[in-house]
């Protein structure tokens, strides 16, 4: 990925370094490995009447996962943390959240107002709140986009997507 020298940050701008994230991810993977190993042990990992039982293959995979993430954990802990680099800067992470949170709300909105209206709202929010575009331009773009995908999917390719009260009111 590109790294811009002007973006080089002082240590105070760093939200979290690579090493701790690396360790946490390994711990999570290790946890998943252990949970899955136990779960597969429960449904049977040995030789049944008609061949290997359901847990046979996944159980062995879980063991590999435990070994590999354990290895990753140990090697990260072993390495000295002095030359650690930033995983993410505070401002950069704020930007990520600014995208991620509206996206989560977008999926929630799909349940109630349907995908087309939710998509228009998502674009509207992005353009005005993050991009700082003018309201009128944002409105035209978002509604135009939703209309276009409606024509493309619903009408032309006959792929049915979640619809809400607005579409029902319009008779679709």
């Amino acid at each position, binding site marked *: *990925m*590109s790294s811009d020298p002007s973006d080089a940050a002082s240590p105070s701008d760093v939200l979290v370094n*690579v090493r701790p*994230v*690396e360790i946490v*991810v390994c711990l999570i*993977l290790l946890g*998943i490995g252990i949970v899955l190993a136990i*779960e*597969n042990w429960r*449904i049977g990992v040995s*030789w049944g009447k*008609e*061949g*290997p039982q*359901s847990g*046979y*293959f*996944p159980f062995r*995979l*879980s063991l*590999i*996962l435990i070994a*590999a*993430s354990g290895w*990753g954990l140990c*090697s990260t802990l072993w390495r000295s943390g002095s030359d650690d680099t930033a*995983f*993410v800067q505070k401002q*950069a*992470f704020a*930007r*990520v959240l*600014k*995208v*991620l949170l509206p*996206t*989560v709300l*977008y*999926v929630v909105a*799909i*349940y109630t107002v349907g*995908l087309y209206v939710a*998509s228009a709202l*998502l*674009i509207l929010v992005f*353009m005005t709140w*993050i*991009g700082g*575009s003018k309201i009128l331009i944002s409105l035209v*773009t978002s509604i135009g*986009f939703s209309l276009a*995908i409606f024509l493309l*999917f619903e009408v032309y*390719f*006959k*792929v*049915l*997507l*979640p619809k809400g009260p607005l579409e029902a009111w319009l008779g679709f």
Partner: protein
Amino acid sequence: MDAVNSLMQGFAVLMTFDKLTLMLFGLSIGILVGVLPGLGGPNGVAILLPLTFGMDPTSAIVFLSCIYWGALFGGATTSILFNIPGEAWSVATTFDGHPMAQNGQAAEALTAAFTASFFGSLVAVIMITFLAPSIAGFALKFGPPEFFAVYFLTFCTFVGLGREEKHKVVISLVIGLLFAGVGMDTVTGELRMTFGFIELLKGFDFLVAVIGLFGISEILLTIEEKLAFNGKEARIRFSTVYKTWLTLPRYWITLVRSSFIGCWLGITPGGAIAASFMSYNLAKQFSKDRDGFGKGRIEGVLAPETAAHAAGTAALLPMLALGIPGSGTAAVLLGGLLVWGLQPGPLLFVEQKDFVWGLIASMYLGNLVGLILVLATVPLFAAVLRVPFTIVAPMIIAFCAIGAYAIENSIFDIWVMLGFGVVGYVFKKLGYPLAPLTLALVLGDRAEDAFRQTMIGSGGDVMALFGNSLVSTIMTFAFIFLLWSPLSQALGALGGLIWPGQKHNPAN
């Protein structure tokens, strides 16, 4: 000349107005997909897969593969004009492509890149035309142990050839295989790893995972880096194209060498990235003007583009002949085959002749039309990148949501996609490769089935995987790949040719 006859039949299948229109449509969308940040080959094809549900399989595969060719062409555009590699294998193109654009030779660089891509894929398609049928014929003799051995070989090449830390490749593979196992066990009917969630009963759809892993995560990464798109202007005049073409025969050795590297490494999964770096470095090694590399040498564009495109095309050979995808996008196309009700594998060449040869014919035609199309429309598509990302990003997110939903008509899948998006974001930042995960997800079930059938056939004896000379040869190759890096270190100098990425820094 059996292959030539079949190929002619393929062209006959292709020459209908509907299919040709679909090709043009697919190529244009593909170039757009390749140009836009956050959309690449695998997720671009996955998102548009729902559009093909109503088509016959041949039209569908022609449409989707044309998106793929378009995306490969489009990726070169952003590498050269914006210094943003669209795919990992376009990274090497930026080394000399972007300096050329900065020197005011954008049109020459683009012409060289597109023509090199065309040449590379032409060589690969010719190879597919003549090799694929015989490989498929050979693979018809395969039983479960052989298939498992081939899957195992696929997984091992990832571990052996991956540039990432080995344990991260293994984790990525195993996670993919485990996810593939979630849900109802097709053999015993038992529920596995669902922990009582009804939604998990059908398991994780791998297309949903691809859209999240490659689409959503890419958006998050792009927004985090706040990429300023400082693109160079591009206007391609026919005279420039003509002049550049006249210089190309001078570099025929580079072109031929890079094509062969691409074809060879493209067949092995995950090889396209290696191919582009390797051919770049070989071109540099053999050049009289080594110091000029990195400052805008035309060979620096020709070599990686030829190899990457050859590899990207060659990746379809194992998919067609063996049912094993050689790249992320090939994996998505394979997922498409399953959706359209076709069984991937060597039998395709026997049972679905029109489908296979229609696809191969479309590779010839699609790349030729793509070359003309991309040369003609580059300024248009480069302008797309000047649209603010705050407008493009929500549209891509909406398309990702549509793609994820439409596969099973399930809103839960959109959540799964978001989850995979966050996982992809963290994994990418930590250097976990995503391609093995994707491939393992799509091959997991079949690898397990092959393993079980082998075990049942042998009564539980693992040595069945070394039961005859064929299967033991494949298994031996698998272990060689698995232990590739210690072996190649032993071979010293050769290793330096294959992975000089660490030594090479474009800034130097």
